[in-house]
């Protein structure tokens, strides 16, 4: 741990008068280059730190966070939190801070990312723009790198420290009415291949020429990994153990039951080195190899520490997301159904009915219509109203899982009868 953070930890340890405390430090160093319409429009660099302390006198709590590291600021932070706790009302759901635990060692930081120079990042942008110019199109996106250090320290002995690096590059190409996007995000800059990303982007652009009008209907759909990631993220968000136990979500009383489709599993895992795997959560829940859903059976759900204590459960927190895939190619998927759509991405997904688990959202960045095993043409964007856990029961086949975000790996899936309900007029 950086000496500067150790000093903060020691200061807090020495000066907190409260019965209990939970200290979290999140330090971040970022460089973000944003471009649009073939030029850089924003360009940002700097370091931040967030020092957050939660204290408790018996079961009365108070919290304060600051971004200054000098002793006066730390003293003021502790004072504010403690004063708040003293006058606060007791919290009947208070749980004492986490105790010392064995924390998994994970390599989330790569020198290739940390050492990336701003000049290299601008060079990536310039090459991306050059491709836009070559395609007689506009290109917009973001090139970013981040380095983070996270420290948790509690009165009861939990001591955690980890760091991570992240590189990201996205490109949205717009030519006349066609828009399409690729994005890359990884802890390791060395795995980034700009030429490959550009080729992929150009391939998508070419496939979307001459779009034709298509009315909404229930139809088989091939969801590419970026689309699936958006869609199932919301399902994961609704898989909350307490809310489910209290009858508020579709997952109520579903633990141990085959509530999802047999082909579908959902994990947080350390077994895939390319995924960022944080070793513990904000609330000091140590990450453990977890199947949330195994072959359709709900094994567990994210469970906060209070609810775990109440119900004699193990607290659980997702630390990355992995949906194991299969081996089917898009060509093979297209042959499995008479006709259908291929969706690149979704956009603006929102819950419609929490109890049913129903969501709405739009397609974005390219939709293709296929028939008789072949892509026929691009179509307009569509709106869906769908229930993600229900769609897992309609998965016909899956492709290989790929990295679609630094902490998410998803496959392409073929889902039957996807419920599109409206279309765009552009």
């Amino acid at each position, binding site marked *: 741990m950086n000496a500067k953070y150790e000093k903060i930890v020691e200061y807090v340890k020495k000066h907190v008068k409260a019965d209990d405390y939970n200290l979290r430090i999140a330090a971040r160093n970022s460089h973000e280059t944003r471009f649009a319409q073939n030029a850089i429009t*924003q360009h940002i660099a700097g370091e931040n730190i967030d020092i957050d302390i939660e204290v408790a006198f018996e079961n009365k709590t108070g919290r304060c966070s600051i971004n200054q590291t000098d002793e006066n600021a730390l003293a003021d932070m502790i004072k504010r939190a403690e004063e708040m706790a003293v006058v606060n009302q007791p919290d009947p759901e208070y749980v004492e801070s986490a105790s010392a635990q064995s924390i998994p060692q994970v390599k989330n930081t790569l020198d290739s990312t940390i050492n990336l120079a701003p000049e290299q990042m601008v060079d990536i942008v310039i090459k991306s723009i050059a491709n836009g110019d070559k395609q007689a199109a506009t290109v917009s996106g973001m090139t970013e790198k981040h380095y983070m250090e996270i420290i948790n320290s509690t009165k009861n002995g939990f001591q955690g420290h980890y760091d991570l690096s992240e590189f990201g590059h996205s*490109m949205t190409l717009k030519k006349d009415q066609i828009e399409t996007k690729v994005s890359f995000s990884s802890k390791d800059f060395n795995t980034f291949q700009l030429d490959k990303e550009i080729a992929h982007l150009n391939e998508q652009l070419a496939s979307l020429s001459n779009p034709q009008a298509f009315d909404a209907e229930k139809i088989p759909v091939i969801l590419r990994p970026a689309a699936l990631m958006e869609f199932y993220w919301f399902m994961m968000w609704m898989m909350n153990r307490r809310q489910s136990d209290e009858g508020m979500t579709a997952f109520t009383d579903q633990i141990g039951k085959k509530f999802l489709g047999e082909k579908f599993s959902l994990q947080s895992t350390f077994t895939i080195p390319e995924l960022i795997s944080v070793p513990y959560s904000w609330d000091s829940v140590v990450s453990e190899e977890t199947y949330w859903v195994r072959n359709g059976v709900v094994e567990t759900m994210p469970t906060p520490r209070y609810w775990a204590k109440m119900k004699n459960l193990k607290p659980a927190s997702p630390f990355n997301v992995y949906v194991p895939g299969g081996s089917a190619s898009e060509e093979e998927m297209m042959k499995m159904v008479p006709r259908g759509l291929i969706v690149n991405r979704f956009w603006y997904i*929102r819950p419609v009915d929490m109890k049913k688990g129903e969501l709405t959202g739009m397609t974005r960045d390219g939709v293709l219509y296929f028939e008789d095993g072949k892509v026929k043409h691009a179509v307009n964007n569509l709106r869906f109203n769908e229930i993600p856990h229900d769609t897992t029961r309609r998965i016909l086949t899956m492709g290989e899982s790929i990295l679609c975000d630094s902490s998410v790996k998803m496959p392409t899936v073929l889902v039957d009868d996807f419920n599109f309900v409206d279309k765009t007029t552009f």
Partner: protein
Amino acid sequence: MKYLDIAMDAAKSMGADYADIRIQKSTTETIYLHNLSLKNTSTDITEGYGIRVFKDGAWGFAHSNIFKDDQVKATVKRAMDIALLSAKAKKGAGLTLAAERSYIASYRTPVKCDPFNLPLKEKVDLMLEVNRMMMNYEGIKQTVFYLLAHKDEKLFASTLGTRLDITTQFINPMITATAVMDGDSQSRTFDEGGRATGWEWINELNLTEKAKQIAEEAIIKVKADTLKEEKPRTLILDPNHLGLTMHESVGHPTELDRVLGWEADYAGISFATPEKLGNYKYGSDIVNFVGDNTLCEGLATAGFDDDGVPNQRWFIIKDGILNEYGSTRDTAPQIGLVHSRGCSRATNYYNQPINRIPNLYLLPGTKELTPGQLIADTDDGVYIQGRGSFSIDQHRVNFQFGGDFFWEIKNGKLHRPLKKVLYKSCNPEFWNSCDAICDERYWQPFGVVNCGKGQPNQTGRMTHGASPARFRNIRVGGSQ
């Protein structure tokens, strides 16, 4: 503060074409009460400075939380270096900035009772009373009271000679009751979205009475029928609901940076392109939208924006026609405008300012019309209160909105409560179907404090407002 001068002197000596510094301290007090458990009682303080340098038609922005002379100078240098790098990837001669003069001014949100000075106990006691009241109702399984108070203290200096001292603040109480019954779960929420004022607003709201209403309506809602078949119906929308509708379908499409395609990779672009200015029938003749950063208690009202441009009031849609955009100093010249409308805002010191929605509202109807008269004049329709599910495409054309509470209207009367109502429409169909707006007596503001936009993402705030309004032939139905 000396750092203003140190930064501006350094920027000038390094040859900046323009530069500014924004020293910002943001303080947030959050009290989150879940049932009777105080899940979070916190004060968050973030302070630092962001320095923008404009050089050779390109921006560089660097930030720091270290208040030392050398660090300020180093941050200016970093912003300059970044601007020079940015200039390697510019289009033509690069960006230009709209003309602006210098100002020496200050602004402070008018507050009678500062919530930051109020004893915590007073706030928590009220919150506990509200949640207890809602939990007394059989069937209410979860109650949430979320109270947010936020203050931004900014010092701004630019190489134009501007020096600004601005303090803005707002308060936002949000109460939700969730009923679980008969295999369903439904929530009802009181959320006016925040207001730039003090605790005096909380006293006016009578939240214990609101709590009873929210709990009772959550129970009514969980037992209510659904609208199954989607068909064209008449909609009456309350001001709270309209706040979000206009935010998504008018506010975002008329941000000039989106119109220019600057948000193409993330938040999206806009159908309301410049050739439509002055001729595009965005809404019916009675539809008038005003951008107004001078609005009293408005969340975007701050005296000046983060470009150092004074707050203004202007028509965005006039008599149904697209009139103008919300703009900044770097977006306005792109369509030939001489001056910015002052819509450049950053959330935190470490954010580069972006083109934001101003306070934006629908002007009330000019003829005397009460909500009761509007309902009495409607044979068959749905009245929607509050905000619910909302989703719109990245061009801001096609959308689907829900709501928080629904009544079926039959023969001019509220006939029965409903749940899970959704409507689908698009621009310009929706605002052109508006055939009645209640008069100014029924105009209410509605704040948005969580407008996500930009990369890295920023959370902006602004106030909307409307009187209840009626829309004809909108596709309305129930969820699956």
